């Protein structure tokens, strides 16, 4: 088979992102990760919800499901559980994943299904033109919080760790090469992987800009960080809350734990659940549990 390049994964649909949107970086990083792993586009499903970032599947030549707001994860789980041979990637924004979809987020993580979840976190609702999101910082003025946000933002990394995540990473779309490694690592990881991506919204978030991030971002791997220690991972996940000048990116935590698919009675056979109806005798056997005969 010919080597696949980034072009092999790009559809002829032009992304709808605003000029300068962080999500271009995620688009590029994702296709770079595909190239690095030589992922078969016909054997890959990219699932999204609703929001600017959820239009990403259209930019790709893979199979895609662009579903409804907040429900990318359960759709992705359904795809993977029905056919575990497919590469399944869920994508979306912070409103989609940490707001309306927060319940699914926690449960998808604790199941450890082999899905890579990329959240393009811009701390704002962009497609609905600038309301507060679950990750908007305290004090931030938005259309829905004209007097400033008064709720504490969700800390997705700490929440993921508390939910039993086996791969937790954070990237910055201003560094797509680094991000591609994090995504690739997530795809190679057996089990659920979360890649929270700080992906600036140039139109509606004037606080968390590229410059704002660049002043704070540093790479965990450059500080000799070991991602196998969960207590250290919590510490790093909470670092920005303690010191607003430090914003670590990289792999926060990675551990080995059985995938859901390897534990489930049906799925551990290793194949897709399949297609064929049972034989008539097999149905009759099941009906015999209800027989009125006394054998």
């Amino acid at each position, binding site marked *: 088979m010919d080597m696949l390049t980034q072009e092999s994964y790009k559809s002829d649909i032009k992304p709808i992102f605003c000029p300068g949107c962080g999500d271009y970086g995620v688009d590029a990083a994702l296709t770079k990760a595909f190239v690095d792993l030589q992922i078969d586009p016909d054997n890959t*499903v990219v699932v999204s919800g609703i929001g600017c970032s959820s239009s990403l599947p*259209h930019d790709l030549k893979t199979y895609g499901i*662009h*579903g409804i707001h907040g429900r990318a994860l*359960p*759709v992705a789980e359904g795809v993977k*559980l029905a056919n575990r041979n497919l590469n399944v990637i869920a994508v979306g924004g912070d409103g989609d994943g940490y707001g309306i979809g927060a*319940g699914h987020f926690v449960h998808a993580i604790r199941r450890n299904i082999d899905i890579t979840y990329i959240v393009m976190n811009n701390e704002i609702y962009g497609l609905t033109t600038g309301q507060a999101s679950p990750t908007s910082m305290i004090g931030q003025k938005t259309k829905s919080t004209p007097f400033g946000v008064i709720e504490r933002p969700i800390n997705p990394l700490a929440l993921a760790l508390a939910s039993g995540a086996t791969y937790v990473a954070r990237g910055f779309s201003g560094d797509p090469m680094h991000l591609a490694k994090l995504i690739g690592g997530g795809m190679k990881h057996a089990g659920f992987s979360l890649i929270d991506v700080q992906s600036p919204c140039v139109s509606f978030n004037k606080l968390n800009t590229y410059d704002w991030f660049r002043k704070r971002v540093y790479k965990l791997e450059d500080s000799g960080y070991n991602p196998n220690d969960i207590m250290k991972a919590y510490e790093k996940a909470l670092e920005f809350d303690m010191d607003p000048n430090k914003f670590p990116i990289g792999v926060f935590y990675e551990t080995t734990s059985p995938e859901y698919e390897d534990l489930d009675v049906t799925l551990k056979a290793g194949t897709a659940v399949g297609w064929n109806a*049972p034989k008539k005798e097999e149905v009759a056997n099941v009906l015999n549990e*209800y027989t009125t005969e006394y054998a």
Partner: protein
Amino acid sequence: MEGISIRISGANGDGIESAGALLSQLLAHNGLYVFGFRGYQSVIRGGLVWYQLKASNSRVYSIGNGVDVFVALTMDALAAGLSNMGENGIVIYDSTVIKTTPAANAKVQFVGVPLMEIALKSGGSFIYRNSVAIGIIGKLLGIDEKTIDIAVGKAFKRKPEEIETNMKVVNSGYDFPINAKLEKKLAIGNAPLEKYLLNGNSAIAIGAYAAGCKFYAAYPMTPASSIMEWFALHEPLGIFFKQTEDEIAAINMTIGAASTGARAMCGTSGGGFSLMVEALGLAGMLEVPIVVVESQRSGPSTGLPTKTEQGDLLFAIHASQGEFPRIVLAPRSIEECFYMTAEAFNLADRYQCPVILMVDLFMSEHSESVDIDPEKVAEERGEIAAASDQQTGRFMRYKITDRGVSPRSLPGSKGLAFVASSDEHDEYGSLISDVLAGIPKYVELRKKMHDKRMRKLDTMLDDGAIGMPTVVNDGADVFMLTFGSTTESATEALELLKSRGINAGLISFAYLHPMPSDRVKKLLEGKRLIDVECNATGQLAKLIAMNTGMVVRDKVLKYDGEAITSREIADGIANYVGKV
């Protein structure tokens, strides 16, 4: 339709359901048709539970209008059950715990039996009172002791250590002298009339299995939970089951699974269905075949979680924003629960749309002796694209066709990748909702895409895939209209009405949506119609009016949580036609 009705009642924790199941099995084995149903409450211990069954030598359609043998284990059970007694019925109460002798009643025979004492003396504990009752009932019906022992052995197959004690206790009950006479007689046989005894939810689950369902997702909710439990237990058959965090996840997972080609189903009651509504539209828009079971219970809101109703019909037909094709089916018997579930998968695949299977608590949870033939299940998988279908460039998943159905491709198929989108899209699946919306060419395309999807409704009607209502007694003077579970009681009401000199017929619907309006109109025209439903507004009548313009004003409606009985229906009909 002569038969004997038996009721055993006590509190939660008294083993009423197991006693009812054992008794049903025993009678079904001995050449009788059995129809049984459990009444219970939303509590775990205490309260009131009853199991009532009717057994007869001919087909049974209800639990009966008057109880012939009633065993009461508690004072509450005794008090609640008396009003259901038939003429000269026998009331056996546990005189160990019920010390107040019930007031004499000319209509019934009271017999105090120290059930608790007998159970304890024979080596059982208080929970074995139900086994004493089984022995007593078996004797009254004239079933031989050996057969009862075999039934006990079968019922406790999974708890072999309990078989011996149970047999002893049952035999003590059998030998206890009862000073009462059962006037009605059943011809006890020694071979079953029908092959199986099962309830609606089991029939639905097995119907799904027979159709090749490989994926079931659900969140626990009465009365749909036993479908989930069936799939959980039967996962080793190679059907994946997932209990989800909520019903929203259940239906979205089902859509994901169905997108891969697997036959997938989710199930719930009205409350959970309410949560599924947005994703129901997603399945409609993505044109993904899914089956959704909606087992209705008394609403609104939490309502009566353990009681039945048919209040969600119009909701199911109209649920979710916008317009999209869907199919709504309502099985009218246990057999139809099996066959229509299998059919639901074929319809979903052929027309690439959600199919809603409407049952209710009564249909889900009542058991009947039935014969089911897996050979009658055919598999139709609809149009699947092969790699050779691809013309140039991208695969046209939503190709505009005359029938409205476009061949779908499954992830993993080479060169047939596409994006399924909840936004309005073009024939490839690409969005026309953002930068193209409102541009004249795309305004036109939006209409074409919407027409393509909606055309599937006409196609399924033209194909004859949507069945007509069933007519019983074509030459009747008055016709009852029913859908789903009320049909069986109405069938039984036909004979009651006949005995009152009323020539009644029955028109029952199993296919509710879409409706072949012209043909239904033609069928109903010129007939005297009375709507019979378990809801307060006559939703089937409204649906018929909406589709045909025909207004059915006379209605026999019940919405107190209990299933409508044949006597209630007959009284209601007689009231309208003037022969009470």
